[in-house]
C-alpha cells in the first residue's frame, strides 16, 4: 500500500476507501466492455478483474502465460496461476501469444505497470541508475511489455505516483510510450497509439494531443493539484478541463474487496 498517498488522500475528507482502492476502481472503469485486454500482473490484473465483475462482463482477459479469455474467480498471484488456464477460452503456447495474437494487432488494450514513468509515458522496468552495467537497482526487466506497448491498439498504465517514479526521463526505456514527443511512435513504426491513459493513486493523466506530454486531466476525491505536482518529477501541466473522479461506489468497493479476500 502507498502509505504517503493514502494519508494525502485521506486528509482531504473522510473516506472509507484507500487511495489504492480508488486507483484500482478508476483503472477498472477505463476498460470498456467487450475489449480484448492484455493484462499484466499486480495492479492491472486487479483492475481488469474488477471491471469484468462490474460494468464489463465481456472483457476478454489475455495473460502472457498463454491464456485467452481467462475468467478467474480470485485474483491470480502470478501471471500463470492455474485458475487462469482452467477458466480460459483457450490455452496456448507462449510463442503463439506474442506472434499470433499480440504482434498482428489483435489486442485492444495493453494494461501495464511501471517502476519508472516519464513525461512522455515511456516505461522503465529494467534498471535504476545511469549505468546499465552497474545499476543502482536491478529491476526484473522487460517481460512482455516492450511488444505489448508497441502492438496493442492503446496502452493504459496503472502505477502509484511519486516524485521518484514519475521522472523527467526514464533511466532506461524498456517500453516506448511517446518517445521524445509527438510523432515519435510513427517515426519508429510502432503500430499502436501508445499510452492514452495513466491511472495513479492521485488522479489520471493523458497525453496532450499536440505534444504527447502527459498532463493531469483528473483528480481523485480529496487530492489537490499541489499533491500531484509534489509527486511528479517534472513540471506537470494541468488540463484546463481538469475533472474530479467520482468516488468508488459501494458496489465497486465491495467487488474489489471480495476479490482481494478470495485471493490466495
Amino acid at each position, binding site marked *: 500500500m502507498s502509505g504517503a498517498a493514502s494519508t494525502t488522500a485521506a486528509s482531504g475528507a473522510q473516506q472509507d476507501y484507500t487511495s489504492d482502492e480508488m486507483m484500482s476502481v478508476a483503472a477498472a472503469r477505463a476498460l470498456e466492455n467487450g475489449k480484448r485486454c492484455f493484462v499484466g500482473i499486480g495492479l492491472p490484473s486487479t483492475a481488469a478483474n474488477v471491471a469484468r465483475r462490474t460494468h464489463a462482463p465481456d472483457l476478454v482477459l489475455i495473460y502472457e502465460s498463454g491464456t485467452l479469455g481467462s475468467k478467474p474467480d480470485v485474483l491470480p498471484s502470478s501471471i500463470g496461476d492455474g485458475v487462469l488456464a482452467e477458466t480460459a477460452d483457450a490455452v496456448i503456447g507462449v510463442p503463439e501469444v506474442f506472434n499470433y495474437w499480440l504482434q498482428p494487432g489483435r489486442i485492444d488494450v495493453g494494461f501495464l505497470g511501471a517502476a519508472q514513468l516519464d513525461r512522455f509515458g515511456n516505461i522503465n522496468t529494467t534498471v535504476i541508475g545511469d549505468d546499465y552495467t552497474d545499476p543502482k537497482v536491478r529491476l526484473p*526487466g522487460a517481460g512482455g511489455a516492450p511488444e505489448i506497448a508497441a502492438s496493442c491498439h492503446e496502452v493504459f498504465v496503472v502505477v502509484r505516483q511519486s516524485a521518484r517514479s514519475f521522472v523527467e526521463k526514464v533511466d532506461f526505456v524498456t517500453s516506448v510510450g511517446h518517445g521524445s514527443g509527438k510523432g515519435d511512435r510513427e517515426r519508429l513504426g510502432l503500430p499502436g497509439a501508445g499510452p492514452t491513459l495513466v491511472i495513479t493513486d492521485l488522479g489520471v493523466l493523458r497525453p496532450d494531443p499536440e505534444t504527447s506530454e502527459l498532463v493531469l486531466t483528473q483528480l481523485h476525491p480529496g487530492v489537490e493539484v499541489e499533491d500531484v505536482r509534489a509527486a511528479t518529477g517534472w513540471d506537470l501541466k494541468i488540463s484546463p478541463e481538469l475533472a474530479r473522479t467520482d468516488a468508488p461506489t459501494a458496489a465497486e468497493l465491495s467487488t474489489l474487496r471480495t476479490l482481494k479476500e478470495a485471493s490466495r
Partner: protein
Amino acid sequence: MADIVSLADGVGELVHDGDVVALEGFTHLIPHAAGQEIIRQGRQDLTLVRMTPDIVYDQLIGAGCARKLIFSWGGNPGVGSLHRFRDAVQHAWPVPLEIEEHSHAGMANRYVAGASGLPFAVLRGYRGTDLPEHTATIKWITCPFTGEELAAVPAINPDVSIIHAQRADRAGNVQMWGLVGVQKEAVLAAGRSLVTVEEVVDELEPVAGQVVLPHWAVTAVAEAPRGAHPSYAQGYYERDNAYYKYWDSIGRDRDTFRTWVRDEVLAGRDSADAAGDKEGVR
C-alpha cells in the same frame, strides 16, 4: 527411446560444467527439483537460459552455478525481487554474472528458431527501446519483400534443456497439459534434453489440450514427484504461493541463503530427493 533414469543420474550424465542450460516452465511446471540437483552436483560456469528466471534460477545463481544468464524477466512473481540475482548483478556475489537481456517476444522467438533449425528469428519488436544498445543479440534486418525493418534475434540452441511434465510412459513419451509455455520449443532446440515427470505410467491417457513429446525427441526422463514445487503441476498440486513469499526471506540474506542450501539442498532433504526414493519404478 528415451532413457528412464533417476534424477541424479539424469543431471549427472546430461549437464556438464560450462554448458548452456535451459530450464523452462512458464509459472507452471517449473523444474525445481532438477535445479536443486544441479546445485547438489556442484555444476559451475553454466550459461543459464530462461524467459522468467524466478526462484529456480535465484537458487542456482546464489549457489554460484552460473556465469551468465540469458533471460527476459527476472523477478519473484507476485512477491518482488530476486535477491540472489540482484546481488550477483549489483555486487558480483558469489561470482560475477554476465547478463544477456531480451523481451519475452524475443526469447520465445529465439527458442522457435532453435527448434526450427533456423539460425535466427524475426519479429516486430524492441523498436525504440534501450535493449538493442545493451544486448548484442538484437540486430535489425530488412524484409526482402516489403522493405520493412524488423528485429532479428539468433536461435537459442542449449546444450541441454530441462523441463517438468505431468507424465511419461515407460518408453519415455512425455505428456503435459495446462500452460505449456515454451517447453516444447526448448526441448526441440536443445542438443540433449531431460524431462522430469510427476509419474511414469503404463499408458498415457489423453487429456484435453495436451502436448506430447515423442520418446525419440527426448534424451532422458526422470520421475520427480512434486518436482515442480513450489510452482504447480495442473492435475497434481497447486502453486504454493506461500513458498514464494517465504523465499523472499531466504534469498534476501547471504547467510540465510547459504544455510538453506546446506540444510535443504546439499543435505538432500528437499522434495527433489523423493525422486531417489522411487528408483524402483525404473
